[in-house]
């Protein structure tokens, strides 16, 4: 699991690579939460899942946790670039209903 993040105004853009599961979800959680604590003006989160080739309910749980934090700030969490099997799991879980999916970060940014 590799995680890169980048601030764009009040939005945090996070790109993940690898597998998001019980072992790696805490790394994702810690890294995003650290940014959110350090930069209080951050109100929205865009997660680029293009290079996430595996996710399970532990990974989804970590994403949902970030969604709740972002909601408390009145912002949005948008998902970008999910591969078919990741998209299927998002749909099965119903998370796609609260976190819309976009084909790329630019389209997601327009939506904020």
């Amino acid at each position, binding site marked *: 699991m590799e995680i890169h993040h980048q601030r764009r105004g009040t939005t945090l853009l996070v790109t993940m690579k690898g*597998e998001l*599961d*019980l*072992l790696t979800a805490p790394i994702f959680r810690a890294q995003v939460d650290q940014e959110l604590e350090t930069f209080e003006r951050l109100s929205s989160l865009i997660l680029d899942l293009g290079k996430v080739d*595996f996710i*399970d*309910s*532990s990974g*989804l*749980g970590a994403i*949902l946790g970030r969604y709740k934090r972002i909601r408390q700030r009145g912002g949005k969490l948008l998902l970008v670039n999910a591969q*078919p*099997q990741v998209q299927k*799991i998002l749909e*099965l*879980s119903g998370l796609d209903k609260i976190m819309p999916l976009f084909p790329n970060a630019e389209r997601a940014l327009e939506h904020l």
Partner: protein
Amino acid sequence: MSAAQNHMRMEFPSLPENVAFARTTVAVFASQLDFTLDELDEIKVATSEAVSNTVIHAYGKGTGTVTLCCQIFPDRLEVELVDEGIGIEDVDKALEPAYTTVPEERMGLGLVFINEYMDVLSIESKPGQGTKVHMVKYVKAPKPDGV
């Protein structure tokens, strides 16, 4: 019931690093059958959930042994995951979507995903006596000769 063409049995401690190890191992073993890549991904998710449950729930904050068995039949893969942990009070309840005993952290979707992705899921569990999760996935397009 016909005999398995191939089988394996594995033991490892309930550590988070073994979740990826176990799901990859099962997928590699399963690839002896004619599963599609999508089906192998589904087998990986199901295994990942079942193993994660042994890490999170079965042994509390401690670590215990997990036993994983796979059997290859001409038409299906059978996967069985056994722990000797705390067991499940009410299996029917555990299978309900969003039911979890750790609501702060967990989504209660692990068993739901297994149910969705495998053709058969059966759970045997008694409080204090551990849990056995049995999963079956059928090959949709079996190879002519089991080659």
